[in-house]
């Protein structure tokens, strides 16, 4: 018995403690499969509900369907799941950078349900972000179950994201790249292998369960050198559309926030607007995968004018859905808008130069998608690899790189923050690994406080203080009230020097007459950035920390620098 126990202990130890890479790979496979299943579940249920609702689309009240969906979705998120609306990707990024990837288990299904309600009823949004949220939350929950530390949990959150994206698009490398480029923000050796394996696992799951419904069937395209020049022009167009899309999304959300309607009324307004638009432009409904498929295969038949209108219709419909209370992501809308842009561009190109020799409409739809993804998310690699995998070949790589780099550079030039990061930057929550903001956010005031200070009474005579001064090393003496122990002020050696050198003053003054009461104080709730700001404004090196009128300790720039440097070494060292 004891032999088995020992053996088990040994194996367990070896598996889970000595080599955490192996552990992460095994856990990563589980996370990849689970998030792949979540993605498949959402896709399948969306298919079913779309078919089920199809006959009702011809009734006059059909425009109310998206409104009902958005209403249910917002009520569900608000009352039952108690989570904020929106797409969830910024929340995942923030959780990764601030809380070591800690997400609630509830998030693994709540966004799936709410986005199912929104998109299934016809709201214009994508299922990717909810699936990413769900996959990350599954990763976080599995890490919690295994008792892993923050670093390992972050890897598993990345695995969940990668599995989800890989499963939805049947594109494992795109999943890997998206996870690292957008969610984690750092290319670390220990992360890449588990995430890559999770991505493959996710893709395999969707291939095994719904092979006939794979979003983009691999199909090759003939793209030649003559397409370079048109792709440069297309990239500029997609950059403009990306910026416009981001602006409209944010503006609409702002207007909705300012309006005095309750949440559910907002959702109804947003939903019915989309419903009414769908009567004239059916492309705006739902996540639009079917339209994308037909555009890639070149069977999409609409006049150039209608497609042109549809681009802006889709932009507006997505903004109305997401900004006014619906739930879902922007990935699918990006793809749809991108492919519409690509096709408009192709048609315009042919009407201007009928004799031009270039690739088919489908290829331009794909290029447009790359342009939009690179522009809106400012994630050029994700855009490139997604399309490379969809076309299953490297023939298109040159125009892809051209479009992707130009589009992301241009939109970065116009607006340096991508759609995902913008919210975080506005809230001061954009904390990429190895940055100043991240280190300052990680360091807690409690770690920096020096508490061993001799306190002096405000009614102490100066002569007595001089005696203390002779024997102690401190440069600062906190002054407190006699009865209450309240913090009153601080005595700095540098400011009282002239009195200390004048024995005639010793019996003439009390400490509350020479203490400095105007020194700004920090409290334990302040974060380090605020403390440093206070120091900068006052131009001082140390400030007292006061909590509930009680002196806690001093915080000094010397201590901050010391710990800051250690923290930087810890955070940037290679594991």
């Amino acid at each position: 018995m004891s032999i088995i126990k020992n053996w088990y202990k040994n194996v367990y130890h070896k598996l889970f403690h000595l080599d955490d890479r192996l552990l992460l790979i095994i856990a990563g496979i589980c996370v990849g499969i689970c998030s792949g299943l979540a993605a498949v579940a959402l896709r399948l249920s969306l298919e079913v509900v779309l078919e089920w609702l199809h006959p009702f689309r011809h009734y006059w009240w059909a425009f109310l369907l998206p409104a009902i969906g958005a209403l249910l979705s917002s009520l569900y998120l608000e009352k039952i799941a108690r989570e904020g609306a929106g797409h969830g990707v910024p929340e995942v990024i923030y959780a990764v950078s601030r809380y070591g990837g800690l997400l609630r288990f509830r998030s693994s299904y709540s966004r799936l349900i709410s986005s199912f309600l929104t998109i299934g009823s016809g709201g214009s949004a994508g299922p990717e972000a909810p699936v990413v949220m769900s996959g990350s939350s599954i990763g976080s929950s599995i890490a919690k179950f295994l008792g892993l530390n923050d670093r390992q949990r972050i890897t598993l959150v990345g695995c969940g994201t990668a599995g989800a994206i890989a499963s939805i698009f049947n594109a494992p490398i795109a999943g890997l790249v998206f996870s690292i480029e957008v969610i984690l923000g750092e290319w670390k050796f220990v992360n890449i292998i588990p995430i890559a394996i999770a991505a493959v696992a996710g893709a395999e799951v969707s291939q095994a369960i719904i092979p006939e419904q794979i979003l983009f069937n691999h199909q090759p395209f003939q793209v030649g050198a003559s397409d370079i020049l048109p792709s440069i022009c297309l990239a500029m167009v997609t950059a403009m559309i990306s910026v416009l899309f981001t602006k409209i999304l944010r503006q609409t959300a702002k207007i909705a926030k300012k309006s005095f309607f309750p949440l559910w009324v907002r959702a109804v307004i947003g939903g019915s607007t989309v419903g009414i638009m769908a009567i004239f432009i059916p492309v705006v409904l739902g996540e639009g995968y079917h339209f994308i498929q037909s555009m890639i295969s070149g069977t999409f038949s609409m006049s150039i004018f209608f497609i042109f209108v549809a681009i802006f219709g889709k932009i507006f419909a997505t903004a109305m859905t997401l900004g006014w209370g619906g739930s879902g992501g922007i990935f699918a809308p990006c793809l749809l808008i991108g492919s519409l842009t690509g096709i408009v561009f192709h048609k315009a190109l042919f009407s201007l130069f009928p004799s031009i020799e270039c690739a088919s409409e489908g290829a331009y739809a794909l290029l447009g998608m790359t342009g939009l993804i690179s522009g809106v998310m400012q994630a050029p690699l994700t855009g490139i690899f997604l399309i490379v995998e969809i076309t299953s070949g490297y023939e298109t790589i040159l125009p892809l790189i051209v479009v992707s780099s130009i589009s992301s550079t241009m939109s970065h030039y116009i607006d340096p923050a991508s759609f995902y990061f913008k919210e975080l930057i506005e809230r001061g929550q954009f904390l990429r690994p190895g940055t100043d903001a991240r280190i300052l956010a990680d360091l807690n005031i409690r770690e920096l406080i020096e508490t061993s200070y001799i306190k002096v009474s405000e009614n102490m005579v100066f002569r007595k203080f001089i005696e203390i001064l002779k024997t102690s090393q401190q440069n600062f003496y906190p002054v407190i009230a006699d009865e209450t122990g309240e913090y009153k002020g601080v005595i700095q050696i540098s400011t009282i020097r002239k009195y200390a050198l004048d024995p005639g003053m010793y019996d003439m003054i009390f400490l509350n007459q020479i203490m400095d009461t105007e020194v700004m104080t920090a409290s334990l709730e302040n974060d380090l950035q605020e403390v440093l700001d206070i120091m900068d404004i006052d131009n001082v090196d140390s400030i007292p920390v006061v909590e509930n009128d009680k002196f806690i300790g001093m915080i000094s720039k010397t201590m901050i620098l010391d710990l800051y440097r250690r923290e930087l070494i810890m955070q940037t060292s290679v594991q």
Partner: protein
Amino acid sequence: MELSVFDLSKYLGVVPDTIERWARQGKLPIFKKGINYRFDTKELEQWAGKHNIRLNFSDKGIVEKERESIITLSKAVQNGGVYFDIQAKDVNSVLKSCLEKISNIPNDFKTDVLNRLIERESALSTGIGNAIAIPHPREQLIYLTDPLVSICFLANPVNYKALDNQPVSILFFLLCSSLKMHLHLLSVLSFCLRDSSFVSFLKSRPDPIELIEKIEILQGQNPL
């Protein structure tokens, strides 16, 4: 607006060498290259906003806090006045009868000032020895417009519980509206009283004008 390396170093609070290194390493938006780098204010503002860096274009922080106008001791003595031959028996009556003489305190406030002075004496005697005392309140008298130092000579020495147990015959009433002023006058006064020739000059009960002239000379020698 164009900025030089030196200007920018002031705004960023680092030495020019650091600015040059940053410029060489491509970390700053450079407006003009060459031996002397030039920077553009607008570009810098954008760059600082993006990187969460504080730029002090407004010269704030460089300007020191405005100094409060400091009155000299001789001026304060002129404000306070010099009084001779005051009759009293003990600490409280000394303070009371001196205060009655001092003309620059509004009558309404005299009882308040007296209470504060008695309170201060009960905490610790202000008799600094050598027959001299510096009565003053612990809290400042915000109703006073100008700081004043009144010198009172007693007719007979009085037991003031001074630090050296000697009876006191000369009192410097130190009454100010601000703490800073109070500390300043106190330190100048303490400087003067350390001069033994000044103390013996005081004991000769000099003429007020001569006394103020003497204080003027002495305070000029004060290094602080």
